[in-house]
């Protein structure tokens, strides 16, 4: 009930300028400590999900819980607090898209040779490839970062 009242109040306030109010709320939330880091490791999936050779991390977001739930629901992947594991990273892409809460997202691409060696090359759904695509070098990651069909708002190559 209280939550509904807040939602209604938020909607009413939105009529007066949601963007400004949103940034005020984000500032207040940041000051209070409501921002956290979270990651979604796409290498490790459940329920027949398709593994991917990267992990996405979001730094300083107020929506860490939603991000984690999305990770599991949409990708059957492994979500957890904090940054992505750094072991076996080849390179990453820093996403340039702007988020309402001023958070920053990164996709870190991994050398997944060990996983493939252990699980086999065709451990994906319905006997498909374990990883549909797997970058093997920084050059491959750089090409992925530059791919506007993958990163519509652009991305920059990054080192861990």
């Amino acid at each position, binding site marked *: 009930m209280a939550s509904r009242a807040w939602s209604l109040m938020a909607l009413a306030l939105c009529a007066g300028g949601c963007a400004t109010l949103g940034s005020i709320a984000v500032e207040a*939330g940041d000051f209070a*400590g409501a921002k956290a880091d979270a990651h979604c490791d796409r290498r490790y999936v459940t329920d027949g999900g398709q593994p991917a050779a990267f992990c996405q991390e979001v730094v300083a977001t107020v929506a860490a819980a939603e991000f*984690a739930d999305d990770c599991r629901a949409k990708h059957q992947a492994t979500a957890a607090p904090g940054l992505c594991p750094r072991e076996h990273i080849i390179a990453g892409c820093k996403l340039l898209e702007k988020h309402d809460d001023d958070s920053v997202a990164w996709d870190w691409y991994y050398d997944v040779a060990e996983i493939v060696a252990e699980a086999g090359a065709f451990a994906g759904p319905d006997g498909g490839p374990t990883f549909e695509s797997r970058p093997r070098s920084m050059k491959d990651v750089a090409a992925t970062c530059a791919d506007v069909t993958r990163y519509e708002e652009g991305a920059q190559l990054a080192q861990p």
Partner: protein
Amino acid sequence: MTGTPPAAETAEAPAPTATPTERTASNVVFAEALGVGLLYSVNYERIVDKWNIGLRGGVSYFTYAVSSYGSSGNLTLVTFPVVASYYFGWRSHHLQVGLGATLLYTGVATDSQGTKFDGERSGAGLAATGVVGYRFIPRDGGISFGVGFTPLVRTSRFLPWGGANVGYAF
């Protein structure tokens, strides 16, 4: 001896020099948007007229469903601002200068599996705060209002903040 007596003997006592009337409304309850309570606060303030000071305490509670997934936990923010203010000015119009502290509690959101996403400053914390602003507090009671600069400071973080309030003095 006839005639009128000297004026000094018959005149009534002279009227006292005009002085501001004493405050009869020493209590103020008010709501503040933003301000030292961060998002909002509901407050009580006791005005001590002879020292021109006001002692204020307040509370705010805010909870929000960060995740739309069922069984996920809300983000919760509770604040307890306490401020001592000195009021400069005449009658009901004041320049307010105050110092205080805001006790903060941030309960971080959990995802649908119950995982907590703790931030660097989540949990309980204390912020120092100040107030510089205009305040109208009628001496005989009535609607009170004000606006001011209300910065907050806590470890390695400064928040330039402001607030506006309206309430009732009685």
